């Protein structure tokens, strides 16, 4: 008696689950864009990406959507962890996601990409910068790839300094990805002496030995391939040890000025330069319109992640517009084919992070700026 009852219950649950999955994609009357990003945990880059994306959705829907069909957006929290990004993808897929902005951080995006490849789901990640994350043909990116930043940094420093130091995190894909290309370039140039110093995720709060090393080597400029918190600690340590090189950072340093301002230390970071596609002070009409709209909606200044999130959604919208998509129930794989055809066909997009087109690997082709903290 008990066995057959539990068996019946199991069958009922199974039937419900199947019907849920089958119903999901046709239940909606909107185009569904989804993504994952770290909304909680040690890194919180998903928060500005989500804000930028939601601003874009709001603007798109305010103009009536595409061919009369509005858009909906959902970003799930993946805590910058690969396994959570994978579950996030599956949850979004079962909810009827048709195109995606992928995951915000590299490791999560690689996991996301693996799932998306199976379904041929189009995604364009705002910020996962490792080339590994966008290897498949359905995967694109808004921001620079890590090797590109290594090239830009080298190009900027090579004619100015002969003794260069570099600090990077050896167990972080982003940090070591940029470092590798940078080192490759420098090693091929006999005129530059390079001193390397590294750290790991468990030693990323103490930089006294790295600064001591670089100071002893007499580095005139130090390239920082990392994120805000570590850069802040390094600059502070350098000051404490009276070491005053020129600092150049990657786009991970975006937000350093406001981070230092929290403790009243704006002077500490003045003069530090970093590579960025997004200049919040730009007078360009598209960029300043974005900044104004973001400020009006959220009462804060957008950073590069917010700009990337905004652009990611806008690129999907513009590609769908060019391809004239009219079917609200379009399958992810068909939508992917239409979008990639448009992007590979040379579509150019002018957005908050500049004007860009895409090459055959899904990498963006755009110009970089060197931004100096004033």
């Amino acid at each position: 008696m008990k066995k057959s009852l539990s068996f019946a219950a199991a069958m009922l649950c199974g039937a419900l689950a199947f019907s849920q999955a089958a119903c999901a994609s046709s239940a909606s009357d909107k185009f569904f864009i989804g993504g994952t990003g770290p909304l909680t945990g040690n890194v919180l880059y998903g928060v500005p990406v989500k804000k930028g994306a939601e601003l874009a959705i709001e603007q798109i829907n305010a103009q009536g959507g595409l061919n009369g069909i509005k858009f909906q957006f959902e970003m799930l929290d993946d805590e910058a962890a690969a396994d959570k990004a994978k579950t996030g993808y599956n949850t979004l897929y079962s909810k009827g996601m048709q195109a995606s902005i992928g995951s915000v951080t590299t490791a999560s995006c690689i996991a996301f990409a693996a799932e998306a490849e199976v379904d041929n789901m189009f995604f364009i990640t705002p910020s996962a910068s490792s080339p590994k994350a966008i290897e498949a043909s359905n995967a694109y990116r808004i921001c620079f790839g890590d090797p590109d930043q290594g090239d830009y940094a080298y190009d900027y420093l090579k004619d100015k300094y002969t003794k260069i130091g570099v600090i990077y995190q050896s167990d972080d894909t982003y940090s070591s990805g940029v470092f590798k290309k940078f080192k490759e370039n420098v090693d091929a140039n006999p005129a530059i002496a390079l001193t390397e110093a590294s750290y790991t995720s468990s030693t990323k709060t103490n930089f006294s030995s790295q600064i001591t090393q670089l100071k002893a080597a007499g580095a005139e400029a130090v390239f920082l391939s990392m994120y805000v918190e570590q850069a802040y600690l390094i600059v502070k340590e350098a000051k404490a040890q009276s070491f005053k090189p020129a600092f150049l950072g990657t786009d991970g340093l975006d937000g350093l000025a406001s981070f230092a301002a929290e403790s009243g230390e704006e002077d500490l970071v003045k003069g530090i330069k970093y590579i960025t596609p997004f200049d919040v002070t730009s007078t360009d009409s598209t960029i300043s319109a974005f900044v104004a709209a973001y400020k009006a909606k959220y009462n804060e200044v957008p950073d590069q992640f917010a700009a990337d999130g905004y652009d990611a959604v806008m690129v999907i919208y513009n590609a769908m517009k060019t391809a004239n998509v009219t079917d609200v129930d379009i399958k992810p794989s068909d939508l992917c084919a239409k979008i990639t055809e448009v992007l590979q066909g040379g579509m150019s997009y002018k957005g908050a992070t500049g004007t860009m087109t895409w090459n055959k690997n899904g990498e963006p082709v755009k110009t970089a700026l060197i931004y100096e903290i004033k």
Partner: protein
Amino acid sequence: MTYLATLINGLSLGSVYALIALGYTMVYGIAKMLNFAHGEIIMAGAYAALVTVTKITDSFLLAILVAAVVCVLLGVTVEKIAYRPLRGASPLAVLITAIGVSYFLQSLAQIIFGSKPISVNLLELNPIKIGTLTIKAEALITLGVSAVCMTALTCFVSGTKTGRSMLAVSEDRAAAELMGVDVEKTITLTFAIGSALAAVAGVFYLLQIPLVQPTMGAMPGIKAFVAAVLGGIGSIPGAMLGGILLGVTEQFAQSSPAIAPYSDAIVFSILIVVLLLRPTGFFGKKRIEKV
């Protein structure tokens, strides 16, 4: 010459570990339990200092004072609520409770302050130049203050009646009770002193690594535990020696680019080696059991 700079950094960080290890060792010696929530007391002290400096006034001394008050209150409360009811229970139960308290405090901090690291500037100090050497002023101050604290503690424990009753309880609780020592009060006092030291440790840790986040106490806490074991758990001079040795070892490991990624592994393998070869540490008492 970089060896001297590394040594000074090591001594400075080591004295922070020593202050934390003192808390571990005293609580173990007197209450016979390992308070794994000690790292979170440090974190609480750091947040208290942050709030003082940003919301009340810019005074470094006030920050230490407020941190000490907050930590003492927190430590004593945790002892009353979580550990005292388990007085007669198995050591494993107390250990697990301590870990639970640790997670509870981390989550509490996350709810109140958020999980994003916050930068904090406690003191503006210029580096000190001696000849061709530049030494971080923060390192010297930390060394100085820690030395003062440790000396004061040693004098208190061996010189005053209350201090000696603490020693008595750690040696033989039953006998101490028979001699009229109020064991409960002594244990509470131990937690209070340990927490106050943790507050000082937290503030000086912030001076060298100016980032506050809910998980900041975990690593220094565990490393200080290793230091306490290295020096002999239950021994006050042992904790001081262990802390300093550990800090210096860690800094030298990190100064070599080849070994640097493994500096944490080296620190923790010290724990393994000590437990294998000399479990009582440097100054721990060898307990002889008469059969």
